[in-house]
């Protein structure tokens, strides 16, 4: 196999099923591509080549013996290095966990392994899925495959880079305030933050218990549907997990958008101070959906400042509770940006935390009410294309008000996917659905993706 980008999950699954593609050859291609691009992208903390080769041979034997487990059997994937995989380190990209060997799989890892997928490595993240890109850690920050001078977004930075560069077609991320959707947006991939409770968080290093979600980054919406079919489901050992039936995500994927009502949040986007190119790309996205038969309705979200107050009070408080002991006893082990951002949580009061949780319920009800008149919301996820890596805000207080964390506050499923380019870098749209209605989000995203055609464009780096 050439060193071309790996095929999508759907394509690889079809070819493996027909015998036109071998899991061993596919895994070797992924490992070659990972090793070749690592000096440019720093996407991986660790490439697990021996383990991957053994798993690929096992998959090949099983499939040849008529024991194909499903559409993902024999296909490589990557894990953000906050997910446990038994026998491997989970470092969280931190000096504090350099010797932390996982003894069991995260529930999500176990599900992907049971589906027959092949782990090729642990991916870079922002330290403990927070902070920002840092140069004072044992591992460098990942770089954007579209332009390696630019930021990947985070915190699932290696996941975005690895999928965009075609090293893997599925990488797991986590999203507390946008950490799946931001790297998806900056790297031009699809990234789904499922509904809070839809996908297990057990065995994934926590940042903020009441906002953390886990989910996939992929190149196509169909691949996100395939991944969600394996990942979604109740985990009784995850206290935040919801016991809600999981639909067949591919059953409605190709149903189109005719008759669907799309709520366009243009005032909210302006409130988020998005750039003119991003605005134009979102307007064009709405027009494309209208052309496909959707009804576009202007809707108003509550002011972003209310969501930000909630998100920041809750995430800073909970993450400080998790890290307080280490911050007090050996703060020097954290990157400066992580340490300072985590410390802010220690300056909040219990009253502020409780008030934020009370306001959160009010805001969630208001967003739920919007879904009485629309089926999906369309918003910005970021103000514009990826900034230069070294110019990324690394202060303790993020100056830019993120747009993505709105739906961490409310828990609704939200998916980022490409909607254009500016200065050679991807722009992204965000589709948001009713709680536990990822299927309709995927349906809209797939219809748009097929019509817009952005998936045909890959980073020049990926042509290596």
């Amino acid at each position, binding site marked *: 196999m050439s060193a071309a980008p790996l095929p999508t999950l759907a394509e690889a699954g079809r070819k493996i099923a027909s015998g036109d593609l071998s899991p061993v050859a596919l895994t070797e291609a992924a490992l070659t591509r990972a090793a070749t691009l690592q000096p440019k992208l720093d996407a991986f903390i660790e490439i697990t080549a021996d383990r991957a080769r053994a798993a690929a041979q096992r998959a090949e034997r099983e499939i040849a013996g008529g024991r194909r487990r499903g559409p993902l059997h024999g296909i490589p994937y990557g894990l953000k290095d906050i997910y446990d995989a038994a026998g491997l380190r989970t470092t969280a990209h931190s000096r504090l966990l350099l010797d932390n060997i996982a003894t069991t799989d995260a529930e999500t890892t176990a599900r992907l392994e049971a589906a027959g997928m092949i782990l090729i490595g642990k991916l870079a993240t922002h330290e403990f899925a927070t902070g920002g890109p840092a140069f004072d850690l044992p591992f460098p920050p990942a770089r954007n495959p579209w332009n390696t001078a630019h930021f990947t977004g985070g915190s699932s930075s290696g996941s975005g880079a690895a999928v965009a560069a075609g090293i893997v077609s599925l990488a797991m991320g986590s999203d507390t305030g946008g950490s799946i959707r931001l790297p998806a947006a900056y790297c031009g991939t699809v990234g789904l933050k499922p509904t809070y409770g839809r996908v297990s968080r057990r065995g994934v290093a926590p940042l903020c218990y009441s906002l953390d979600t886990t989910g996939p980054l992929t190149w196509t919406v169909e691949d996100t549907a395939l991944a969600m079919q394996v990942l979604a489901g109740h985990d009784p050992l995850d206290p935040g997990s919801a016991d809600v039936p999981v639909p067949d995500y591919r059953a409605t994927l190709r149903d189109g958008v005719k008759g669907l009502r799309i709520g366009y949040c243009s005032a909210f986007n302006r409130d988020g101070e998005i750039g003119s190119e991003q605005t134009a790309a979102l307007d064009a996205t709405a027009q494309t959906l209208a052309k496909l038969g959707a009804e576009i309705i202007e809707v108003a979200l509550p002011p972003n400042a209310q969501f*930000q107050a909630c998100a920041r009070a809750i995430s800073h408080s909970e993450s400080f509770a998790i890290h*307080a002991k280490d*911050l007090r006893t050996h703060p020097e082990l954290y990157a400066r940006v992580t340490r300072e951002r985590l*410390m802010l949580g220690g*300056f909040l009061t219990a009253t502020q935390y409780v*008030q934020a949780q*009370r306001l*959160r319920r009010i805001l969630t009800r208001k967003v739920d009410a919007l879904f009485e008149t629309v089926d999906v919301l369309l918003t910005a996820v970021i103000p514009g294309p990826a900034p230069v890596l070294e110019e990324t805000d690394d202060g303790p207080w993020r100056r830019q008000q993120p747009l993505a964390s709105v739906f961490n506050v409310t828990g609704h499923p939200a998916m980022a996917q490409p909607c254009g380019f500016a200065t050679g870098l991807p722009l992204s749209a965000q589709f948001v659905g009713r709680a536990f209605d990822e299927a309709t989000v995927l349906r809209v995203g797939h219809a748009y993706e097929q019509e817009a055609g952005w998936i045909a464009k890959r980073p020049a780096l990926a042509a290596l």
Partner: protein
Amino acid sequence: MPDDPNSDFAAAVRRAGVAIPEDRWEVMRDAYESMQALLKILDDPLAYEDEPAALPRYDAGIKR
């Protein structure tokens, strides 16, 4: 500590039990003030019945 030891920020740092290097004190105080300015919204009065979002669900472990 290059600050009035009775200031809100100095008190918050003491209560948090963390140490801030002298050369980062001003940056952290500025971050603290920016955070508190945003969180003023949380002082708006709420109704008694507006309960928090993150409440325990005791049915979560019940087998159905």
